[in-house]
């Protein structure tokens, strides 16, 4: 079989981004995915770091932190590249590395992120007099009164109102945000008609679940011009339309850029010759197949996606290349007493250690393979959920690995 330039293993945010950046640089790319990736689970925002000014905070991170290996310049370039891909799919993102944007969550808190879909940017809420929280009849997982009650704590001087509109969803199985978004795809007017009954003005904001289509091309302006009020989407329980929009935007871009995507391709092991990775072995129901490349990017994720597994205590593994995995030893370091804690969770810091080129290293810091790069949730040394860096590390490590 022909040797390609780059093989990317993994169909999550990091894998897509790595494949996109490499393809953009005229590399021949093969993307191997298994399962649906973690994007449908994601809120759609790209969180960089839990800090008022992430760019300044990143400089102060410890040396072993993935961001220190990636470097600010690459983070910045990754953000630009990412926004460009999203914009091409009519999925505009707003934000920058030096500030945080508030987003309304499905429980009525605000979450903060550097990079958010324009439809979720709630910065303007502060300037509004009245806030409508609007649910959809028959839509599960969206509870307007809970959201309004909790949001009041952030905005005690605003008037809150809850309402329900009917998109005729009832009658079959349980309806999720994805179902509602599917119905509203290319169908802005239906929603606009329903929302007119609120009699909202330009002093008002309307908060709805993330149902503005499953593609990036939903035109919010159709609604805002007719209603005059601003309309914002919240986050939601998975499957999450904003995550799916992003997934589709990437797939469209990758297909256009000539990336060969092989779905349902479970990579079972690497092919190593002369201390160099020359390919990977993919297993499907009936046979094994070898894919060869000059460079391999490992974006198989952490515990959630199976990029790291652990059958027995104190023995986490990277199942494809058997790369040594860093982890905090002992029960007391493995997890915190509180699930939602004021410090990182040890188990979430588990992952692979690398050099500045994101090549995996062994326990002694010796580089294992110079043409294998590790990106995204595979990287160890920080709790990406606690520090709200999962999205940022995914896109920026992918950017760096693809441009080396």
């Amino acid at each position, binding site marked *: 079989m022909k040797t390609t330039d780059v093989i990317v293993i993994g169909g999550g945010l990091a894998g897509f981004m790595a494949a996109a950046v490499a393809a953009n640089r005229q590399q021949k790319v093969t993307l191997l995915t298994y399962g649906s990736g973690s994007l449908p689970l994601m809120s759609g925002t790209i969180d960089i770091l839990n800090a008022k000014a992430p760019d300044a905070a990143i400089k102060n991170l410890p040396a072993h932190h993935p961001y220190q290996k990636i470097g600010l310049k690459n983070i910045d370039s990754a953000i630009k590249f990412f926004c460009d891909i999203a914009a091409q799919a009519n999925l505009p993102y707003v934000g920058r590395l030096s500030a945080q944007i508030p987003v309304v969550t499905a*429980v009525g808190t605000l*979450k903060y992120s550097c990079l958010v879909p324009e439809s979720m940017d709630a910065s303007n809420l502060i300037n509004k007099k009245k806030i409508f929280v609007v649910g959809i009849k028959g839509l599960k997982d969206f509870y307007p009164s809970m959201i309004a009650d909790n949001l009041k704590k952030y905005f005690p001087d605003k008037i809150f109102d809850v309402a329900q509109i009917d998109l005729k969803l009832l009658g079959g199985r349980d309806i999720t945000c994805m179902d509602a978004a599917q119905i509203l795809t290319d169908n802005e007017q239906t929603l606009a008609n329903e929302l007119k009954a609120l009699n909202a003005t330009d002093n008002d904001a309307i908060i709805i679940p993330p149902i503005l289509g499953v593609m990036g091309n939903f035109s919010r302006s159709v609604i805002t011009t007719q209603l005059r009020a601003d309309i914002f989407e919240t986050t939601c329980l998975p499957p999450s339309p904003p995550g799916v929009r992003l997934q589709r935007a990437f797939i469209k871009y990758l297909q256009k850029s000539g990336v060969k995507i092989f779905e349902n391709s479970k990579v079972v092991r690497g092919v190593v010759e002369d201390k160099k990775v020359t390919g990977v072995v993919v297993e499907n129901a009936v046979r094994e197949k070898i894919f060869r490349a000059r460079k391999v990017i490992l974006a198989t994720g952490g*515990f959630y996606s199976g990029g790291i597994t*652990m059958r027995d205590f104190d023995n986490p593994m990277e199942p494809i290349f058997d790369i040594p995995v860093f982890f905090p030893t002992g029960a007391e370091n493995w997890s915190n007493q509180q699930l939602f804690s004021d410090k990182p969770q040890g188990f979430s810091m588990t992952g692979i250690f690398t050099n500045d080129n994101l090549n995996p290293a062994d326990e002694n810091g010796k580089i294992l393979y110079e043409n294998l790069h590790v990106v995204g949730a595979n990287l160890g040394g920080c709790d990406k959920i606690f520090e709200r860096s999962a999205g940022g590390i995914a896109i920026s490590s992918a950017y760096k690995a693809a441009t080396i």
Partner: protein
Amino acid sequence: MEKATVVIIGGGATGLGILRDLSMRGVKALLVEKNDLVNGASSRYHGLLHSGGRYAVKDQEAAKECIIENQIMRKIGKSCVEPCGGMFTRLDIDDEAYEEAWVKGCADSGIEATPITLNEAFKLEPRLSRKHVKSAYLVPDAAVDGFRMAWQLIDSSKRYGGELKTYTEVIGFDSINGELRGVKVRNQFTGEEYEIGCDIAVNAAGGWAGFVGKLAGVEIGVQPDKGTLIAFNQRIVNHVVNRLHKSSDGDIFVPHGSITILGTSSMSVPNPEDTSTSREEVESLLKIGEQTFEDLRDFRILRTFAGSRPLYIPPGGAVGRSASRGFAIVDHEQDGLKGLFTIVGGKFTTYRLMAEKMCNQICAKLNNTTPCRTAEEPLVEEVSQEDKDRAKKFFPSYGTNLAATRLGVDRFKKVVERLETDPESRELVCECENVTRAEVEEICKDDTSFIVNDVRRRTRIGMGTCQGNFCALRAAAVFADMGVESTAKDSLTRMREFLQGRWKGIRPVLLGRTLRETEMTRLIYELSMNITGGAAQ
């Protein structure tokens, strides 16, 4: 002042059994519990309805009580018992002489123990170790759902006028001239303190009986003995599988619906509130468990949990595994406080018998001659086929039966009516355990629902495969909307507390696929929901 003839302290199986028994005999009884019902050993256990085989060698009196109560429970609590049967298996490393003594002990205690060939055993339990299992017997063990049993006991008690207050802690006793006049209590949420007048109080606080005794100035020999258990996400066994050896740790597997519970350890602890579990305890249970089932570690562990057996220690008596599983009734008139009783020790399987004996003494004092009928009358009426058929329009039939027995006749009817009239209420709040919004709403309105965990214990939301990932948000929202108690409104605290409750049992078993579920929980509630509400620092 509020008044009852008898105040029962402790909402475990024993206390609820006494409430039911007294109510059925026409005695005005009120039960107070400092937490939610069955929060102690009555739910933190195997869920094993003993045949008595476990005690056939060491304690034949207990064994005989077990087999009799086992038969009664199957009759009166039909929908709480899964008559899966039990198997005792001796491994190559176990003492053969014990097997002989056990066979004789079962015969002497009236427990039918049928020897089967190894081939038969492997056919019935395909995962048994071919290498280690050397002999096998069938016994009439069964699985019992402690939660469901409790709710049915309450429904039965209420039908006869029994009352109860949860989250109501006893803080003292009121007596005059050595005669009890009332019980002082505190509401755990509001802090309000008040007295409930009574002629008789029963200390049925299980592991906490010693603390309650102290409030009355009496010494009670109870030793909390912690047992840790593991719940697996699969049905690994079809029968209750016991090791045929001298009772020890980690030697019983009990199937419950789609899961299996393995346990338990035995460790004396100073405080029954200590329900902590550790990785070491889990490891040691797995090590013993995999002697019987070699591929045990390939199954996903859902969670681990622990409870404290309230072992009765008579002055100078043995502790731990050597302590008797029998029970004792103390009339504290001997200690100078007329009107106070303590009932302590025993086990879930025999709770009804314990309650009967306790109530016989109480009724003698009250000159009440009504006989005990708890062994004859079923706990609840059966839900009619007509109501089940109506429900089947919205549920799979498996879910219908579960909901019907969980809710009982009256609430089930209300839930079905709601499902019929409001299509939105048909959505599943908990997909893992098939719980509809209509059912959650109904339980949220209950006067014993103060936090989402109370709703969980009654509906089983969050107890299945995903351990609350999806239902935490939904349940907290529905509870905020429908709950009658003021605690319901604080949805974020309720949601966090609910997930933290799940976390407690997940933490010591955080490996394998459980790690995936936990990362998903954090992805949803920390990343997507910012559940702690914090701002960027």
